[in-house]
């Protein structure tokens, strides 16, 4: 059924795709930030303080989801300021440039590339370095993904994909599909007609059972 299902893909550029479920999940991730002005009656909504009337004093530390941070961020009116999460900071960028293959991007992400691209919206002075690191990380992990996805045939791939970011996992699946389709064809399984998985799982009685 996967051929007839067209999910909206993640955007990955500066803009997310509005209807992409992956992008919606990605924009839920929290960003460290700081209130640049007092935010009245918002303490409860942002998870600080118990009363509905409490306000957030200026300068307090916040953990804001990306979508809200994007909405509140404005280069002119200073409502909040946004910090970089630690994996996009210089210390981690050095780790990535040393050897990107050793990093567990699923634990760090799992939307490392998409979230990093969205971070560029906050006019951070380190933007060029961030963009460059994300690109170089992808490039240096490319070979590993390609080789493992196209060599592992009929194997348990969970260990291979455990450390991959969601975007890389989709790429891994594309590589696996190419390999599996070719191997099926070569063995002659492509020409055998089988019942669709939909019919096989069909719970009702079959026509032949009705007489007996």
């Amino acid at each position, binding site marked *: 059924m996967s051929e007839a299902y067209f999910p909206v893909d993640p955007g990955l550029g500066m803009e997310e*795709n509005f209807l992409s479920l992956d992008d919606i999940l990605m924009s839920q991730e929290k960003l460290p930030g700081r209130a640049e002005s007092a935010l009245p009656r918002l303490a409860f909504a942002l998870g600080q303080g118990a009363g509905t009337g409490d306000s957030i004093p200026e300068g307090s530390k916040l953990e804001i989801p990306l979508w809200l941070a994007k909405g509140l961020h404005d280069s002119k009116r200073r409502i909040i300021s946004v910090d970089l999460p630690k994996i996009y900071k210089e210390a981690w960028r050095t780790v990535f440039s040393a050897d990107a293959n050793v990093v567990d991007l699923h634990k760090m992400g799992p939307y490392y590339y998409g979230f990093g691209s969205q971070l560029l919206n906050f006019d951070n002075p380190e933007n*060029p370095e961030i963009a460059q690191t994300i*690109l170089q990380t992808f490039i240096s992990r490319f070979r590993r*993904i*390609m080789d493992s996805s196209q060599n592992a045939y009929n194997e348990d791939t969970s260990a291979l994909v455990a450390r991959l970011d969601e975007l890389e996992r989709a790429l891994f699946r594309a590589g696996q599909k*190419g390999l599996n389709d*070719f191997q099926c*064809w*070569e063995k002659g399984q492509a020409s055998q007609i089988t019942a669709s998985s939909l019919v096989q799982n069909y719970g009702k009685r079959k026509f032949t059972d009705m007489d007996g």
Partner: protein
Amino acid sequence: MEPAEAEFLAEKELVTIVPNFSLDRIHLIGGDLGPFNPGLPVEVPVWLAINLKQRQKCRLIPPEWMDVEKLEEIRDRERKEDTFTPMPSPYYMELTKLLLNYASDNIPKADEIRTLVKDTWDTRIAKLRLSADSFVRQQEAHAKLDNLTLMEINTTGTFLTQALDHMYKLRTNLQPGESARSQDF
């Protein structure tokens, strides 16, 4: 595209058969075939050749290149060169599989041919991976792959274009161009 669809296209290639029946010229949408005379070689598309073969109405003559010596030469050349060398047929993999599966009794040294073609394929796929990797590493935007066949492009095509698409977006992240504006009202 699935391998079966590449095979479908490959079945349009012509092969020579020796029929054991007689039939007048037949007029098909894609061209006329025949006439068929017992014992006289005639060129037909692979799909028809296989069908006639299964009905035991013909003997199949393997294509000229499906020969152990020629394939050994092709394999050795493929290993020596850095780029992809021209293949004897744009559907060499598909034809080898089809002809060896349905008419291996008409092809001399079928097992050796199968091994040689598989070796050539493996060499080319390894080469394809190597060049894809250096293509990505150097952040190129275009490449020329003259002698790759459809089946080879097809096995890594989706993967490669998807990866390059991601790379393009990551590279153009900082230049808000027309692509970033497309969702504005």
